[in-house]
């Protein structure tokens, strides 16, 4: 019997394991929807119900002006530094804005960068991210992308910037070889419950378990849809714990992040 599964079925906060959600969005609205109960304090209440200790968050308004939406994330971190970490969202179409956005993010204690060119009408393969990564290389940052494009492209970044942690933001096996080869490449479980993504069990069976990170896409998606495939999976409890938070804690230690997570 899995204790985590048992608590999940009963709607009790997950205990005995740090739970770190590596892929979240904060914001009250996007063109798709309005987002009720999205203020930082309300989201903390929502996290507490599930026993989620900390979330890595970025803008939900990714197709518009990055500065305004980034500010929302920094304000949440100011209010709840032990519960939120922010990533700086860059708009792929406006590299001229990146230096100011990166400087501001650094000043506001951001933990890295969020990329999502696929929602910004810019072909990924046409973008040179190196100015942003040059800025980031000595900052102990992570970079999470909606989709990195070809494995060759991600390999180029992983090799050129070994101090950065590169995270593929949505469930896929496209980067399997890179996860094995490079200590700084990770895979998020985000949206693995959907049929056109890689399923959680396929991630688990094919990738090194130490490289899999839990991510939900909340507040786009419900925390429950992200946790269910992991917590209810027929896999050893210690592997669930690694994916839910221990692997993310290892990254935090490596990057000297103080997440303020208390022992549960």
């Amino acid at each position, binding site marked *: 019997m899995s204790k985590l599964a048992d608590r*999940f*079925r*009963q*709607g009790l906060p997950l205990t005995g394991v740090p739970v770190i959600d590596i892929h979240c969005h904060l914001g009250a609205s996007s063109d*798709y*929807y*309005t*987002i*009720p*109960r999205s203020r930082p304090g309300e989201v903390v209440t*929502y996290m507490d*119900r*599930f026993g989620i200790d900390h979330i890595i968050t970025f803008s939900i308004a990714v197709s518009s002006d990055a500065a305004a939406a980034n500010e929302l994330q920094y304000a949440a971190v100011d209010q709840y530094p032990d519960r939120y970490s922010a990533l700086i969202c860059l708009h792929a179409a406006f590299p001229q804005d990146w230096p100011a956005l990166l400087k501001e993010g650094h000043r506001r204690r951001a933990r890295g960068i969020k990329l999502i060119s696929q929602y910004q009408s810019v072909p990924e393969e046409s973008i040179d991210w190196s100015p942003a990564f040059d800025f980031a290389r000595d900052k102990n940052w992570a970079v999470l992308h909606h989709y990195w494009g070809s494995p060759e492209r991600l390999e180029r970044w992983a090799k050129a910037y070994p101090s950065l942690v590169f995270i593929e933001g949505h469930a896929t096996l496209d980067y399997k070889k890179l996860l094995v080869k490079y200590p700084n490449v990770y895979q998020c479980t985000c949206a*693995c*419950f*959907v*049929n*056109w993504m890689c*399923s*959680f069990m396929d991630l688990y069976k094919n990738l090194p378990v130490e490289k899999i990170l839990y991510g939900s896409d*909340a*507040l*786009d*998606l*419900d*925390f*429950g*849809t992200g*946790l*269910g*495939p992991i*917590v*209810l*999976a027929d896999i050893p409890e210690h592997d669930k714990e690694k994916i839910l938070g221990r692997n993310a804690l290892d990254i935090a230690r490596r990057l000297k992040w103080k997440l303020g997570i208390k022992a549960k």
Partner: protein
Amino acid sequence: MEYFDAFLPIGRTNSADRSSPTDTDAALAVMDRFGVSEALVYHTVARDSDPELGNAQLANVKHRRLHKIWAFDPAYVIPESPEKYLRRALKENIRAILVNPLTRNVRLDHSPRILELAHLLEKRRIPLLTVHRQWCCAEDSIDWYRLADFCNRFPMLPVVAWEFRSRSNRPMFDALATTKNLFISLSSVWQAQMLETVCKTFGPRLVFSLGLPTLDPTSFIGVISYAPLKTKDKLAVAYKNMADMIKEARHE
């Protein structure tokens, strides 16, 4: 928590989860694994392409936990009247009827055969499931304003809507606000905290589904178990809404 899956498929379809059932035993096994005590079952062929061929595949499905759904073809040239079709369905112990307006571009509010069927179903309070599925498109397939108009034309007809993903919540809220008989599958509504938002604003107007064939069946159990709602409301969504609709329908 007891669950009633309002949309459990039997049969193969594009991109199905590997746990999606193909026969009665597999349907019961997946239900047992996730604590689902009863389900409305349809055949994927009936939903996706050929209602009569798919309906016939359910002939041997006989189990007290499985309530059969038939799909209805709105094609005007079909000789059998909706009345005769319904009589035939009831003889086969069918508990609800499914229409897929996306095969192709059928309008619920303008199709003569659907309107005639809806009138007959309304008289008996038999649920109509509008399953907006097209193999080549995904989210936001429902025209919520038209669906609301349709629901209001048949105010005593229980209508349960499904689509792959109802991402645009503004028109969905408008449809809930302007109807009383519209229910939505929880498995269509993936956005954070939508269960509690809908329940607190409109009442528990959702029904549970594991999300098969296209979603991992572990996905929506936690959405219900962790929702900050009274047990009564959680139970309504998880089980009671659909069970009551079936119980209150006059199938005899």
